[in-house]
């Protein structure tokens, strides 16, 4: 091997360094996603010989009401996981950035905590909150609003929003911390200039703060939208898609169809569709942010 190779010169040894990671990655991720595409084109019960189905498993996602609902529910969850945390996070971060409050470190530690607690534990905790004799109903009783009490997770109307609020709960901290980091990098001169122009707090927010954190907003949306579309653990523990199918979501349908109903082809088609949607959405969000920045 020559000693004085300039950097950036082609090196075949690179393949050796890549090989171990690539072998595991290819065997346990690339190959399975290829197999998922293949399986999605068959009707297969997991035991007998599969029957060619063409694109009918994909057509069912649009035609089958139950499946379509699962994707609609995921869309509703995006509102709770991504839109609401972004609105709340923008407000909180703007307040924190504006007023130099004490205890910011503690606040950051606390609001970020839900991100690191296992989702199964989160689900157990919130089941308790929503239970018929749980904390939420206790609170409503104490406030004299006992007419509103119900078994929240067993209610056809309220089960999906109840699951969504859990999403709002654990994503808002992440979004707030992310936006705070972005806002702390805005040069103070921008605010002074806005103030000299006679801008009030609201105008200042829309003219200075919001455009400056466009990149952070894109990252926050990418993370939270993907999390919303991938919701599985939470639904599995709290509702199992019920009551009826009022909280069924794509990830849960993948699991349920593959291992509950033995419709492997359909499960694979939902998984592939979900993957494509996730890639498309993160591509669009980042495109949007890039164009806005330039």
């Amino acid at each position, binding site marked *: *091997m020559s000693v004085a190779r300039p*950097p*950036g*010169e*082609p*090196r075949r*040894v*690179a*393949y050796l*360094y*890549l090989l171990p*990671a690539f072998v*595991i*990655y290819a*065997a*346990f*991720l690339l*190959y*399975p*996603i290829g197999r998922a595409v293949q399986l999605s084109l068959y009707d297969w019960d997991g035991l007998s010989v599969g029957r060619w189905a063409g694109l009918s498993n994909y057509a069912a996602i649009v035609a089958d009401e139950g499946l379509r609902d699962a994707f609609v529910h995921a869309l509703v969850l995006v509102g709770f996981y991504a839109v609401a945390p972004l609105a709340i996070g923008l407000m*909180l971060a703007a*307040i*924190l950035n504006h*007023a130099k409050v004490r*205890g910011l470190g*503690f*606040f950051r530690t*606390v*609001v*970020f*905590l*839900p*991100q*690191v607690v*296992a*989702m*199964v*534990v989160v689900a*157990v*905790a919130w089941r*308790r909150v929503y239970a018929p004799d749980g904390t939420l109903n206790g609170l409503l009783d104490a406030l004299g609003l006992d007419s509103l009490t119900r078994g929240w997770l067993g209610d056809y109307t309220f089960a999906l929003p109840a699951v969504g609020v859990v999403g709002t709960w654990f994503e*808002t*901290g992440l979004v707030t*911390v992310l936006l705070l980091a972005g806002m702390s990098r805005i040069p103070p001169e921008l605010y002074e200039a806005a103030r000299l122009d006679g801008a009030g707090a609201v105008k200042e927010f829309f003219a200075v703060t919001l455009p400056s954190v466009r990149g952070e907003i894109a990252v926050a949306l990418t993370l939270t939208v*993907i999390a919303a579309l*991938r919701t*599985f*653990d939470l639904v*599995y*523990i709290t509702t199992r898609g019920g009551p009826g199918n009022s909280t069924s979501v794509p990830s849960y349908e*993948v699991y349920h169809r593959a*291992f509950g109903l033995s419709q492997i082809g359909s*499960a*694979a088609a939902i*998984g592939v569709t*979900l*993957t494509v949607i*996730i*890639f498309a959405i*993160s591509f669009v969000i980042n495109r949007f942010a890039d164009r806005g920045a330039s």
Partner: protein
Amino acid sequence: MISRGERLANYVILSAFAAFALFPILSILFAALGPDDSADATGQGLSVAGLHLGNFSAAWEIGHFGSYLRTSLAVSAFVVVVSVVLSIMSGYAFGTMRFRGQSVLFYLFMLGIMMPSEAIAVPLYFDLRSLGLIDTFWSVALPQVALSVAFGTFWMRAYFRASSRAIVEAARIDGASTWRILWQVLVPPARPAVVTLTVLVFMWTWNEFLIPLIMVTSESLRTAPLGLAFFQGQYTSGFTLLAAGSVIVATPVVIFYLFLQRHFVRGLLQGAVRE
């Protein structure tokens, strides 16, 4: 500049929000430390200063959390060590070398960062079943190595690209091999990046639910979150022991978080940031 009233209002908003974030977590903790509410609870076990620590040993025994923690620990240790080492090597190749097919290979790795495990778990189950590998340690650990290595490669590549070329060049002129340059020149100052990667992979692996749920049937291979889910389904005579089990499952990652908070925040926030 800021009026006293405004400052007070800010503190009120912040406290309200912090309380909202903490409330479900604290309610689990308090339930776990309270008296056992199950109908068949006989003696209340060990109690120190009003804290019913006996609940934890009761949950540990009734819920078999000892076995679940052991599995989780083994799986996490394997996934963390293997994927961090492999990510350092592949990140080194992508970050400091130039070779044919580099960008195609890199984009292939990037697919894995956003890939939902739901999409790959189903075909993996059936392929591993025909290989007789289902319900083994490997069926739980290796898919998670694959998922982690995608992010790890991205993470370490970004670090190595930004690290000083001059040091590498100097080592090269001294005749150091690429292997020695990596482990003796580049990795020691990369410790913060490696620690961040380590805590993230540990957290993801410890908290992972879907892959163990699909791959494991025997109880001895259940990970901590999976064990908790089963415990929740089977043990319905009270909330105290379920809360104690939840605390047991969540504690390892929370402790890491409290000590290495910066790494968690940095990693999770930059996880989706592409260059």
